[in-house]
């Protein structure tokens, strides 16, 4: 069976993913330029930078996995449900936001 692309409209899913990326970029810009948003100003802990690196790496892995699942869903929507794409994407956004929040 040829894995042809289905005729399903994935526009709404793409919009949701774009909104999440914009949110992450906005949060990163805000944390970088607003001194009042620096996490270390209020609370600091040992190995904060190392934890931040781990969170960024984990977020990157989750982002790559989400992108992979999204591509597979476009090819075979009957095999890869949208929930298996959306839930890893939510984790990606949460983990990356956490990493951005404790960066400074």
């Amino acid at each position, binding site marked *: *069976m*040829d894995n*042809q692309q*289905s*005729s*399903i*409209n*994935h*526009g*709404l*899913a793409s*919009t*949701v*993913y774009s909104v999440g990326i914009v949110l992450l970029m906005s949060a990163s810009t805000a944390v970088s330029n607003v001194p009042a948003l620096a996490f270390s100003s209020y609370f600091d802990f040992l190995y904060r930078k190392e934890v931040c690196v781990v969170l960024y790496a984990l977020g990157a892995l989750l982002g790559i996995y989400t992108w992979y699942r999204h591509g597979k869903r476009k090819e075979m*929507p*009957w*095999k*890869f*449900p*949208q*929930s*298996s794409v*959306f*839930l890893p994407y939510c984790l990606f956004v949460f983990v990356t936001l956490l990493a951005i929040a404790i960066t400074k």
Partner: protein
Amino acid sequence: MLNINENVVKALMTLRGITLENMANLIHATEAQLWMWLEGAEASEEEKPSADREREILALLGLHENRPRGDVVHYWTIRENFLCNVRTTYAPLLVMLEVFGPAKVVHLARENDPAVTTEATAYFGLQFDTFFAILEVQGHAWRSIRFDPDLFSNLTWASSAPSVAIPDAEYDKLEPGALSVFSMHKRIQFSTEVPLWDSLRELALDRGIRAEEVITLLQSSNGDVLNRAERVEGVTGARVEVRDTPLEAPAVAVKLPPVQTPQAVATPPAVKQEAAVAAVPVTPVQVTAPSPAAPSAPKPRPARTDDFSVPLRRQ
């Protein structure tokens, strides 16, 4: 060896989500009686459901004359756990394919993909020889769905484009009885024809034929396309020349009588019309009402056989 009746009943009960308790309640029997019958346990006639109860069960499950009804679209559900054995989970579907197969399958997809959802549900349309069925597969939210027609020997995709988009409103209301047989047939036929129309369009583009020309041709010929000097053979592009010669008259087996020459025909004598009219006496004709036709004897119904005595083929 188990009678195929019980296997099909158990499979359909699982696919329809009917528990033993519910079935016993519906047919006014005990769970023990049903269990004795379905498991093929040795028991007396009183410990098993009667023949009438068995027929009720078959009717409840949508079986008519030894096969699922063809006037409705059956609705089956299979639930996949996070760690599920495909062979065990899809055993009921395997039974139905063994007994009533082979079948073709299409994926019924929502026209607009929902972005935010935590449900992993997929719908498939199954086309058997005499009936249609919708298979709802409820998977786990984090895992991919294991259903794959390649795992079943009697199941194939209806076409190379397996997904058929359904309008959102219709998709959200998919439930038992929502789709008619005509609608299912239309969906599956559309899925089968889409790749063929795509191939036709590519072929026309390669040969420089525009869609307007095809439309004009079909409208002008009134569908009589085969009498053209050339016609395209299938979608392979091979052109076959057809001569515009009339078809040969088929051989006639009946001998026609020889044509009589004009001399052999005797001319009839001239008849005076007035004398002919007077010579014919007019007798009154009594009109009687026709006797009512005797009612024809009803055609004997074929003997009903609820016989699933075909042994289950083992793989």
